[in-house]
């Protein structure tokens, strides 16, 4: 539609960078809450990719997928934070290294 628009590949590179930052966050942070935030970061990178492809192909199915991803993310955050609160009540910590009940 517009020749001056940034190309699809620019959006893909940005989505890749954001996804990588989310992956690193999940792997190197110790606080369960920050790990949740990094997961949100990854979901958003994928959403950006969906919307960019949707724009490229002129089809709105990508927007529908983003809609569903947001619904699933909301459910995930509600349950995840409830679990986090339950763990914090029992162990007084949200540090994932200190929660090792299954380790034997």
């Amino acid at each position, binding site marked *: 539609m517009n020749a001056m628009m940034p190309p699809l590949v620019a959006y893909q590179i940005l989505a890749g960078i954001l996804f990588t930052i989310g992956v690193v966050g999940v792997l190197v942070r110790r606080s369960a809450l920050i790990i949740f935030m990094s997961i949100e970061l990854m979901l*958003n990178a994928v959403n950006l990719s969906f919307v960019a492809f949707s724009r490229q192909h002129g089809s709105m199915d990508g927007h529908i997928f983003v809609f569903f991803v947001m619904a699933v993310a909301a459910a995930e955050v509600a349950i995840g934070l409830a679990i986090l609160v339950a763990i914090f009540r029992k162990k007084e910590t949200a540090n994932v290294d200190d929660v090792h009940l299954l380790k034997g």
Partner: protein
Amino acid sequence: MLETVLFSFFALTSVVCALGVVFHRNPVHCALLLVGVLLSLSGLFILLNAQFIAALQVIVYAGAIMVLFLFVLMLLNFRQDPDVLTPGAAKGFGFLFGLLVMVELLWTALSPNGGEGGGLPAAPPLPADFGSPAAIGKILYTTWLFPFEITSILLLVAVVGAVVLAKRKFA
């Protein structure tokens, strides 16, 4: 030209804020930086003719979900940890794995025939109502009606599960 400037601005803001989310010491600052990422992504959505999704992003993500995060953050009153990053070899492996993921994703995005990013023709002209709530609602309630109903059940399960988890007494 304006699109390029706006894209660069939003892309830079989102990457800087995302790095802040992962590496900042104070969890409250991390949450606020995540709001920054979400808002700049909603700007990018508007650039991509997805007005409805951009509005949803601001209302649902930057509004509802982040309020939940900040609520739990203040409710639990985390103490400041001296070392926020996981210690020892796990940290090194984390960064190494992140580098591998980055190389792989960029390789896919930039390869001419593997990904779709290479020599694609310019995007086709869009219909006037592309990305509008009316157009999205029309396909959401026809083509995607069944997944939509499943989503409502998923949200119901999440609500019930959160209440059960929050009420249960742990010995």
